[in-house]
Structure formats: structure tokens, C-alpha cells
């Protein structure tokens, strides 16, 4: 196999270098421990976790996290804010623990990456150099990909697909809507951040309408015919929201191809639908800095080596989280956090002159279907030979037709998961 040949030749080369210069692996490690610089771009679930784990694995390495916002607002559980069950304050996390860990925080936008010079330029003019760069840039909206949906339109028809002001805007619009109104959600084609997210949100909006505005209705216009946890959501909708939620798939003319923000009108191929509140979840791509760093391909997402998380396109740059092409691993906070940890282990090994190791990875995503019931999807993956694959016989969704106690137990597990993962990422 080609891999084996490469490995041998590389080993021979390293051995040759070592024999000539008498540099041992422990010297390499000493070099890494004392001089290596790791820069992390993006302070979300991926970036914050990566920074903390690198610092813990290689305590003498300088770790800098670049993040323009002093406070992070988490997307998981933000649908409960939209549904009225949770305060946005519970979604906010700062970086004080990271500072306590000895991580430098550069509160700025990364505006450019030079992979040859191994530098990152910030919008405050400073330039950071690195030995290894970990990018966790999240998503950016493909403005204009949906005709009529630009930044101004998002102020009238919020996407709320990045948590914070958009989340609150959608919540306020729902609160201000008179009973009897129509809420319309447009769900995009894959890939996008958080595959079950639109349907959890739809459940919680329908829950709000049912309890507070019972003459109102939610219509989901979907660019797909199938979606994550579909049988579980459809079961929940039939049970809890038969009069408050309609889903229209792509083959039933559900694909929105144009919007007019001023009138809150959404156009499909055959229809036009006027909304009182419109939540347009638009097409997405990797966060913008990824494109400038040259780590995106024609899809707008980042191809990576699944074992090392190193970019397939640029050396010494690792990419994790929603921005990556990591399917069958989903674009979830769980995946981003786990990829960050595995990537940190890989970077620590590489900086210590060792090879990266493949491993088994798991993902779990909980979705609320009512304010106190949840369903889940889980998957188990391998990252051998630079590619992700699902492990046969593992993973899947919660049982259908399950008792309320099972759904309530999964809601409690979801709460625990959120508490644990945010503490692992932000301290």
C-alpha cells in the first residue's frame, strides 16, 4: 500500500536525520514543549475546547485563542429560548477560565492567514505566528444564495442560526405576533449546522403557539424530503401539535427559492406564502476566515484528514467543527468538542515528533420535542486512514412509541450534557 511505503520512507528519512545530527525523539519533544506556538481561531465549542486541551497536553506551549466576542452565546439549547422556556443568560459563557489556564485571548477578528509564513493577521493590525494553527471558524451565511435574503432581510426575517441577538429577535417577533398568526420556517438543504436543529425549533415554537397562541400555526417549508430524527419528530408532531404544525417537504413544493423581506413573503416553485413571523434558515458555508486561509474547497466547506484534522489543502492548519467536511459525523456541538479534543491530541503528538493515532469517536445529539421531553440520535465513527466512517451496528435514534418517562429521561440527560460540555469547553 502507498501509505506503508510513505511510512517506511519517512521513517528511513527521520532515522537518517537522527543518525547524522543525533537528534532524538525526546529532543523533538523538548523543542515542542519549550518553543511551539499554537494559535486557535474561533472561541466556540471547538476552538475553546481545543485551546484548553492543547494547553493541558503541552503545558509549556504558547496557546493563543483568537475570538472577537468577549462572551460566547451557545446555539445548543437556544431553541428553548425561542420557545420561551429559557433565558438567553443561560446560554452565555466567557473566557475567564481559559485565561486562568494560561491561554492568551486575542480579542480580535482574524482577517488573514498566510500558510506559507505561518502567520495570522488580526483586524487590530497585529500578526501572530504559529507552528500549528487550529481553525474552528463555525459557519457563515451564504448571503444571496436564497434570492432576496441578505443582511437587511435577516433583520426582518431572522435566521437565528447563530445564537445571540438573532435568537432574541425571533423570540420577540413570536411574542409580538397576534394570536391567529402564521409562522413560517424555511429549512435548507444539507449540509448545514445542527441537522435536527430546525425540527427541534419547530417543535418548541409549536409548543409555544399551542399554549399561548392556540389559533396560530407554524408551517415548515423544507428543501429536503427527509431529515434527522424524522420519524421521532413526526411522531411527536402528530401527538402534540396536530393543529399547530405543518411540514412541507421538497417533493411537495416545500423548497423556498425566493423571499421578500418587507412583506415577509416566501416563494416556492408553485406557491407564495405570507408569514406573520418568518424564520429563514438559509444555506451556509464554513466561517469566512476559512476561505481566506485557503482551507475551503468548491463546496465552501473544509476537507480534512480525519485522523489528524489537518487541512487537505494547507499544511500545519487543522480544521475542526461545523466548518469541516466530516460526514458521517454531523455538524454538532458534540462533534466540534470531540473533534477539538482528538485534534489537540494529534497536534500534541505531531509537535512531539510522533505519529497521529486513529480512534473511535461518538456523537450524541438531543432534541427537545416539548419543554420537558427530548429524543436523541447517536453515532459511532472511526477515523482510520484519514477518512471518517460509521461503525456498523452502532448508533441510531431513540425508540419510537416510547413512554413519556423515556422522553423525560432524555431531556434530563440533555440538560446534563449541556452542563458538562460547556464546562469542558469554557470551564
Amino acid at each position: 500500500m502507498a501509505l506503508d511505503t510513505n511510512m517506511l520512507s519517512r521513517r528511513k528519512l527521520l532515522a537518517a536525520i537522527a543518525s547524522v545530527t543525533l537528534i532524538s525523539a525526546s529532543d523533538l519533544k523538548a523543542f515542542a514543549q519549550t518553543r511551539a506556538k499554537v494559535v486557535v481561531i474561533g472561541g466556540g465549542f471547538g476552538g475553546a475546547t481545543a485551546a484548553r486541551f492543547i494547553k493541558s497536553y503541552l503545558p509549556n506551549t504558547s496557546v493563543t485563542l483568537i475570538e472577537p466576542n468577549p462572551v460566547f452565546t451557545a446555539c445548543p439549547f437556544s431553541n428553548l429560548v425561542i420557545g420561551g422556556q429559557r433565558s438567553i443568560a443561560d446560554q452565555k459563557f466567557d473566557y475567564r477560565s481559559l485565561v486562568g489556564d494560561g491561554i492568551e485571548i486575542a480579542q480580535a477578528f482574524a482577517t488573514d492567514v498566510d500558510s506559507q509564513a505561518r502567520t495570522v493577521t488580526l483586524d487590530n493590525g497585529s500578526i501572530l505566528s504559529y507552528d500549528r494553527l487550529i481553525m474552528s471558524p463555525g459557519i457563515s451565511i451564504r448571503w444571496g444564495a436564497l434570492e432576496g435574503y441578505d443582511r437587511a432581510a435577516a433583520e426582518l426575517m431572522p435566521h437565528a442560526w447563530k445564537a445571540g441577538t438573532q435568537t432574541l429577535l425571533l423570540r420577540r417577533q413570536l411574542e409580538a405576533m397576534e394570536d391567529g398568526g402564521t409562522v413560517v420556517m424555511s429549512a435548507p438543504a444539507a449540509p448545514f449546522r445542527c441537522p435536527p436543529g430546525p425540527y427541534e425549533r419547530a417543535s418548541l415554537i409549536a409548543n409555544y403557539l399551542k399554549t399561548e397562541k392556540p389559533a396560530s400555526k407554524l408551517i415548515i417549508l423544507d428543501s429536503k424530503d427527509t431529515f434527522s430524527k424524522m420519524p421521532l419528530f413526526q411522531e411527536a408532531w402528530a401527538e402534540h401539535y396536530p393543529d399547530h404544525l405543518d411540514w412541507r417537504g421538497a417533493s411537495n413544493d416545500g423548497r423556498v427559492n425566493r423571499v421578500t423581506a418587507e412583506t415577509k413573503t416566501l416563494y416556492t416553485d408553485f406557491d407564495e406564502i405570507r408569514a406573520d413571523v418568518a424564520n429563514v434558515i438559509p444555506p451556509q458555508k464554513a466561517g469566512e476566515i476559512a476561505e481566506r486561509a485557503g482551507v475551503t474547497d468548491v463546496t465552501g466547506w473544509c476537507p480534512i484528514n480525519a485522523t489528524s484534522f489537518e487541512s487537505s489543502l494547507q499544511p500545519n492548519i487543522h480544521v475542526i467543527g461545523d466548518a469541516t467536511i466530516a460526514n458521517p459525523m454531523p455538524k454538532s456541538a458534540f462533534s466540534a468538542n470531540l473533534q477539538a479534543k482528538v485534534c489537540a491530541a494529534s497536534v500534541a503528538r505531531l509537535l512531539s515528533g510522533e505519529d497521529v493515532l486513529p480512534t473511535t469517536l461518538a456523537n450524541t445529539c438531543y432534541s427537545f420535542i416539548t419543554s420537558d421531553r427530548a429524543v436523541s440520535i447517536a453515532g459511532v465513527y472511526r477515523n482510520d486512514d484519514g477518512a471518517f466512517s460509521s461503525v456498523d451496528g452502532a448508533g441510531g435514534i431513540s425508540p419510537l412509541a416510547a413512554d413519556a418517562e423515556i422522553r423525560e429521561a432524555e431531556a434530563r440527560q440533555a440538560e446534563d450534557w449541556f452542563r458538562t460540555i460547556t464546562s469542558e469547553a469554557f470551564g
Partner: protein
Amino acid sequence: MTTIRLSVPETADRGEIIELRAMIQHEMESGFRFGSRGEMIPQDIITKFECFYNGTLVFSSNFHPGVAANPLLKFYARATESGSFEFVWTDQNGQSWSDSAQIEVS
């Protein structure tokens, strides 16, 4: 159950150019994609679309891999007489689906 959506004006003036739209639910699996375990997903596509106006073929199209799922066609015809537009899709295995809509021409 395969969903078909048609848009044909209910009425038209004689000689008027009318817009016709037709969409069918279909995966249009290209045959070039791989599943999560690396297996190739076999090709399954519609290969032919035809539109008949009172039995006369007025529009047809051949589909190939690369045509999107749930293909939508939008095209134009001249309204000459009252009657029906029939839309027919045929897949690579010869299976076909059809639906029709009436038009009143005055």
C-alpha cells in the same frame, strides 16, 4: 406515493403564450455518490419527460445524471384550443408516471 405538482392556467385567450410548470418527486440518484460506508449508491433517474396537448407532443426533454432531485420544469406553450395538458415522466427502467390539467381557451 409519488407527488406530482402541475401549474397550468385554468383559462387563456386563444393564441396566448402560457407558462407551464411541472415537478415530480424523485431522488434522481446520479450513481456517482458514495454512502457512509463507502458503498456506491446505484443510479436511479428519470430519463424522459414529455408534455402532450390534446394528445400532441408539444415539449419533451431527456434527463441525465446531474439533474437535481425533484426536477422542476418550466416552459411555454401557445394556447390554441380547450382541452388537456398531459405530463409524462419515464425512468431508466421504463416505469412511468403521469398527470394532467385542463385548460379553457376562449
